[in-house]
């Protein structure tokens, strides 16, 4: 009996392998397909995402938009063990992978990795369904899909429309971290964040002092791939400034 029990827990605690969860990288976020989404932040079952915490709406502090295979979340989980972090990913197989991996990690390392979770959702359309006003303290956009063609520019995760929503969900002083290996995408994101009234760019010294910035480079699957191929990465960070500070 004991052997059977050990086997099954060992099986369920085995880390899932990425090669069984590969999926096409690009998709159309403007398509209204049948993605279930919560009516509002109060309607989300936070307890099922973070069972070890008395999760209430308004507790999540870090949001990884387009988290892919969850590399950044895993890394930050041990750095900030009492901050709740949510990953948002639109691809089904990839979000399943992260879910299974989180569960496996929680079993393998009891007490750890309880503060990360993933939801499968279209962050462009349903971002504000998950977060209340001025809730988040950090947001991450790691290697977002470039969508080069002119007709696809509105699919980019950073646009003036969406930056207003991110400014709504971020608290004053909250930081947005962006990194990309495509220079054009990096310049696009930097331009739009700088132009928005409610954000200001962080200087190089401020970025050096921040302990999270070094994690952006190689935590994720995409980041490791770029390093393997010998590509360049461009990083930029922005702070949400108070609305009242402007005329």
């Amino acid at each position: 009996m004991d052997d059977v029990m050990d086997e099954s827990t060992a099986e369920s605690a085995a880390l899932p392998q990425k090669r069984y969860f590969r999926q096409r990288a690009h998709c159309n976020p403007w398509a209204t397909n049948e993605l279930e989404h919560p009516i509002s932040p109060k309607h989300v079952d936070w307890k099922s995402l973070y069972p070890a915490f008395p999760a209430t709406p308004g507790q999540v502090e870090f949001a990884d938009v387009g988290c892919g295979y969850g590399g950044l979340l895993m890394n930050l989980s041990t750095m900030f063990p009492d901050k709740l972090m949510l990953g948002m990913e639109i691809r089904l197989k990839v979000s399943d992978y992260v879910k299974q991996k989180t569960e496996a990690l929680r079993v393998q390392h009891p007490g750890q990795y309880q503060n990360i979770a993933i939801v499968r959702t279209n962050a462009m359309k349903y971002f504000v369904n998950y977060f209340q006003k001025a809730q988040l303290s950090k947001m991450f956009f790691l290697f977002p899909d470039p969508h080069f063609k002119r007709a696809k520019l509105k699919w980019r995760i950073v646009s003036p429309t969406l930056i207003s929503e991110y400014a709504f969900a971020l608290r004053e002083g909250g930081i947005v971290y962006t990194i990309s290996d495509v220079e054009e995408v990096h310049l696009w994101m930097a331009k739009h964040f700088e132009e928005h009234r409610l954000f200001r760019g962080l200087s190089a010294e401020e970025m050096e002092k921040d302990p999270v910035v070094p994690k952006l480079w190689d935590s994720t699957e995409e980041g490791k791939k770029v390093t393997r191929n010998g590509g360049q990465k461009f990083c930029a960070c922005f702070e949400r400034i108070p609305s009242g500070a402007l005329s």
Partner: protein
Amino acid sequence: MILVTNGSSVMVTALADKLLIGTVDSSRPSTQTDCRPHLIDHRKLEEAYSAPPEKTEASLQENGQATVSTTGKKLVAHNSGIKSYKPDVENTRWISAVAISLSGTFIAVVDNLKDLFVYTVRNNSESLDRPKLISRRNIPKRCMAITFTSDEASIIVADKLGDAYIFSISADTAQAPAPILGHISVLTDVVVSPDDRYILTSDRDEKIRVSHFPLADDIQTFCLGHTEFVCRILIPSPDHPVVLSTSGDCTVKAFNYLSGSELTSVSLLEEGPPNPSPGTGVYVNSLSYSPAIRTVFTSLRSKNFVYGLQLHVEADPDLKVAFLPLQKIAMTAPVVSIGLLGMTLLILLEDPKNPFTTLMHIDQLSETGSNLQNPHFSGYEEALRTVVQDIEQSGQFTNLFRDPFADMFNMFSRGSEVESEHADTDSKKGFRKEIARQVSPAYRPNTKRVKTDVPETMEYV
């Protein structure tokens, strides 16, 4: 067909490319004064105007996102953005949205050819004999809703790609302005708060966004609670931060637009779940509020009823809103749109022979007895009937009562635990199968495999 009023003195019915403006002397009760109709035919504009409209640099080609309309393939000037569909349809004008300023001085009209017209019916508090055109310009994208700001100096236009633009009443700039705010979805309605401090926009993704005005990149809150596209929003009174909203989920909800919390909700369906199955085309389409008797009037598209709901607002200590049980008044045909002028309720019906009717004395309406029509609107009614019959006879528009919200339902059911395989749109195989299923059989390739190696009959000789 669209019916819009400013509540007291001006009403506009827009159908095809024609406007029927009705003015009423608001200093006298609507039961004693006639409604004077004026017809403006936009087809005649091409001859009257020698100068072409100012084309803005931003009016680029449409993206050509095709959607299949529920009225069938003959998309006569359908607002879904198909520009190159039929050559004879391209130049057909169809009015898509109308707004009247609060005092009734200005009327703004947008059509599917992206022209924005502004008319005035008053000149220095004197009513003009005929409405006068003040400005005409081109806007970047097709739009679903427009509104005036409370100071009547600007017009906000909400377009089909989710952006809202602000224009001044007179055409002083040739360039299209940058959008002041955006959604990632079709915008269905836009409203500015009476103190001009907030702008509320509703979209197909069940959201109502409340942003500061005029610096609309600062969002105040989101009013979340609807489970289908939000159709119309209305701010009933300037005293409380309450917004009423109607939706494809057949409910009317009230929200506090400063905090975003849902105050109350009432469903207009008697039986069945709050979400009727999509494709039935039932949704709450109109919303009108009478401050005199504090009643909200609304109607369900495709049903023959007008509903009256009494609105009770308490501000102490917290903002609380309640709808009292509703009154249901039967009509002779499905209700397209409703509006209020003083104490008279105006109703557009989906009946080419009798498209327009009125209900007088809205404070004394009864469900069972007969309600009086307002005889002073008979001139308007006659004029409208003539216009409808002219259009039907000319045959230029196949569906006058076309429903602009028919294909806005979001087509998903909440609470289903099973993830269907088609939900994964990234899987190429499923995507191709989905397309093949939608295409009619005539276009499907013949996939029957003919077996050539095995003979049909085995003959034993």
